[in-house]
C-alpha cells in the first residue's frame, strides 16, 4: 500500500507535485490556526487579519495566473477586486430578506461578485489582449483607474420599488423612510452586514487553488504557458494565442471578483479608494516576491506580507519603502546574470545542503495526500 502510494507520487508530473504541496500547506495552516484558536492562542489583531489574509492569497494566486503563467503584466487587478466587492455587497443586501441564513447568502454574493468581475474581465480583456508588453500593462492600469473613477460616481439604493441606480445621491430619489443606500459614490458601500468568516476564506483559497492549478495542468494551461514562452511558435502549431490569454485573464478576473466580494463582506464600510493602484501593486509584490508562476510562493508571500506589517507596527513608516526595495532586489536577483551567479554560488550551497539526497526535492508529506 505504502509502496503503491510512493509509486503514484513518483509518477506525478512536477506541476502535480507542486499543487499537492499547495493544498497541503493551506489545509495544514487552517488546521493549526483552528486548533490555536480553540486553545485561545490567537490574538484579536491576528484574528481580524485572517479573512484579509485569505483574500490576499486568493488575489495573489489569481494574479499569478496572468503575470506568471500567461506572462502579461496586469496592473489593474484591484479593479476586478472592486467590481466583485460591490457586486457582492449589492447581492448580499438585496437578498437580506429572502436568504436569511448567512452562509448561503455569502456563497451567492461571492458567486455574483465572481460572475460580474468575470464579465468585466471579458469586456476589458478583448480589447486589452490585442496589445503587447508595456502597452498592455499600461492599459490594464488605465482600466483599473477607470473602474475606480466610475465607481466613485455611482449611487445605488434600494427601496420597495427595487434597485435604483443614479449618478448622484439626490437623483436616486430614495424613499427616505424605507430606502436603503447601498453604494454611496466615493463613500462606497456603508452598513454592510458582515458575513465573512475564516472558514469561508479558507474555502475560497482552496477553490482558487483548485481552479488555477487544474487550469495549469490542463491542455488549456499548457497552451497558455506555450504562448508565454514563444508566441510565434504557439501560432505555428495552430494555437489561437489571444483566446488562451483571454482564458487566463478572465479566470483571474473572476477569482479576483470572488475575493473582492469576501473582502467587502468582512467590513461594515468599503470605499472605492481602497481598490486603487496601490492595492494592485501590493498584490503584484506578493506575486513577484513569491516567484512568478510559483503558486506556493504566492500563498506564502501573501500570507507573510499581510501579517508582517501588523507584527512590525513600529516600522510601519518603512513598510512600503522596504516593499519597494524588495521588489527591485528580487527583480535584480532573478534577472541579472552576475547577480544570479553570485546567489547560486553562496545560497545554492545552503539549499543543496538542506535538500534531502533523494530525488524530488519538493516532495510533499505522504500523509497529506
Amino acid at each position, binding site marked *: 500500500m505504502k509502496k503503491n502510494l510512493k509509486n503514484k507520487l513518483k509518477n506525478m508530473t512536477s506541476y502535480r507535485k507542486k499543487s499537492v504541496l499547495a493544498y497541503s500547506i493551506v489545509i495544514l495552516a487552517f488546521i493549526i490556526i483552528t486548533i490555536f484558536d480553540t486553545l485561545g492562542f490567537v490574538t484579536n489583531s491576528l484574528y481580524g487579519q485572517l479573512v484579509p489574509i485569505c483574500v490576499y492569497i486568493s488575489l495573489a494566486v489569481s494574479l499569478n495566473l496572468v*503575470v506568471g503563467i500567461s*506572462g502579461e*503584466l496586469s*496592473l489593474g487587478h484591484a479593479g476586478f477586486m472592486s467590481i466583485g466587492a460591490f457586486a457582492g455587497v449589492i447581492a448580499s443586501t438585496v437578498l437580506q430578506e429572502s436568504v436569511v441564513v448567512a452562509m448561503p447568502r455569502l456563497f451567492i454574493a461571492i458567486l455574483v461578485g465572481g460572475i460580474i468581475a468575470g464579465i468585466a474581465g471579458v469586456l476589458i480583456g478583448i*480589447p486589452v489582449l*490585442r*496589445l503587447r*508588453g*508595456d*502597452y498592455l*500593462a*499600461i*492599459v490594464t*492600469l*488605465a*482600466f483599473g*483607474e*477607470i473602474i475606480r*473613477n*466610475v465607481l*466613485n*460616481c455611482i449611487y445605488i439604493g434600494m427601496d420597495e420599488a427595487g434597485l435604483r441606480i443614479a449618478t448622484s445621491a439626490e437623483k436616486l430619489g430614495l424613499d427616505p423612510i424605507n430606502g436603503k443606500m447601498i453604494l454611496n459614490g*466615493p463613500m462606497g458601500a456603508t452598513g454592510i452586514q458582515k458575513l465573512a468568516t475564516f472558514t469561508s476564506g479558507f474555502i475560497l483559497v482552496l477553490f482558487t487553488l483548485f481552479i488555477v492549478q487544474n487550469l495549469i495542468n490542463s491542455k488549456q494551461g499548457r497552451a497558455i504557458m506555450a504562448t508565454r514562452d514563444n508566441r*510565434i511558435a504557439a501560432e505555428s502549431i495552430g494555437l489561437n494565442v489571444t483566446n488562451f490569454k483571454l482564458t487566463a485573464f478572465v479566470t483571474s478576473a473572476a477569482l479576483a471578483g470572488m475575493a473582492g466580494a469576501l473582502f467587502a463582506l468582512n467590513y461594515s464600510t468599503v470605499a472605492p479608494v481602497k481598490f486603487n*493602484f496601490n492595492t494592485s*501593486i501590493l498584490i*503584484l509584490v506578493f506575486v*513577484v516576491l513569491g516567484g*512568478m508562476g510559483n503558486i506556493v510562493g504566492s500563498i506564502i508571500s501573501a500570507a507573510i506580507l499581510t501579517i508582517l506589517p501588523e507584527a512590525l507596527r513600529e516600522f510601519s*513608516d*518603512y513598510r*512600503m*519603502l522596504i*516593499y*519597494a*526595495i*524588495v*521588489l*527591485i532586489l528580487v*527583480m*535584480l536577483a*532573478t*534577472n*541579472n546574470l*552576475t*547577480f544570479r551567479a553570485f546567489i547560486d554560488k553562496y545560497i545554492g550551497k545552503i539549499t543543496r545542503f538542506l535538500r534531502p539526497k533523494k530525488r524530488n526535492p519538493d516532495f510533499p508529506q505522504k500523509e497529506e495526500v
Partner: protein
Amino acid sequence: MTFLTYLTSGLGLGSVYAIIALGYTMVYGIAKMLNFAHGDVIMVGAYIAFYSTSSFGLPAWLSVIVAMAFCTLLGIIIERLAYKPLRGATSLAVLITAIGVSYFLQNAALLAWGSAPKVFTSLFAKIESFKFFDGQLVISPETIFTVLACIIIMLVLTFFTAKTKMGKSMRAVSEDNGAAQLMGINVNSTISMTFAIGSALAAVAGVLLCSSYPTLMPTTGAMPGIKAFTAAVFGGIGSIPGAMIGGLVLGIIEIFARAYVSTELSDAIVFGVLIIVLLVKPTGLLGKKIHEKV
C-alpha cells in the same frame, strides 16, 4: 470666452504633460523601457525647488537649476543601480523594477518630507496675469511661461538629436543598439545621457506643474506621470513631436472633460482616450510599426 479660457489652461496643462512625455519618449526610444518612476522624479524636482526657496532662500530661477541638477544626478543613479543590471532582461522584469523604483521614491519622499501637502509658491508669483478683450480673457503667467518653456525645450531637443554628435548617437542606439556599439558608440553612456536629459526635464516639469497646481505631496508626480506616459503613447512612443502633440491634446481633453462633463470622470475620460487610440493605432499617432523577425 469661457471656451478660450479653458483652451488656454488646457494648453498650459498639456505643455506640462508634453515636457514629461518627452522624458518618457526619449528613454523608451533608446533604452526600450517604460521608466515608470519618471513621474516621481517630477515630484522630487518640485520638492527640491520648494526647499531651495523656502529653506535656503534661493531666488526662483536658481531653485529651478538646483532642482534640475539634483534630478539629473538622481536619474543617472537610478539608471545605474536599478536599470543597467537588467539590460537584456524581459520587459516584464524591467517594468516591475521601474514600478519598484517609483514606489521607492514616493515612500522615501514620504519619510523625508512628510505626508502633509506643501503649498508651492509659483515661480511667476510676481508677474501679473495677462488680460485680453477688456479683461474677459485672463491668462495666467504660469500658462504663458509653461507653453513657452515647452516650445523652447521641444526646439532645443529637436536640434540636439538632429545635429549634435551625442544626439546622433542617441538616434543610432535607438535604431539598433548592437550596430551602434559596433560603430564605436558607447551605448551605456548614451543611455545614461538620455536618463540625465529626461530627468532634468522632469525637474522643469515638476516646477511648472506645481506653479500652476500648488499642492505638493509625495504622490504629486504619480498621476501626471501616468497621464504623460499616456500622452507619449498617444503621440507614438519614441517620437519627439509625437510627445508634444500627445501632451497638448491630452491636456486640452482633460480640462474640457473637467469643465463640461464631470470632475470625477475626467481621469476616466483621459484613459478612455488612451485605450481608444491604442486600439485603433497600437503604436500611437506618429509611432513606427515594429516587426518581429521570424
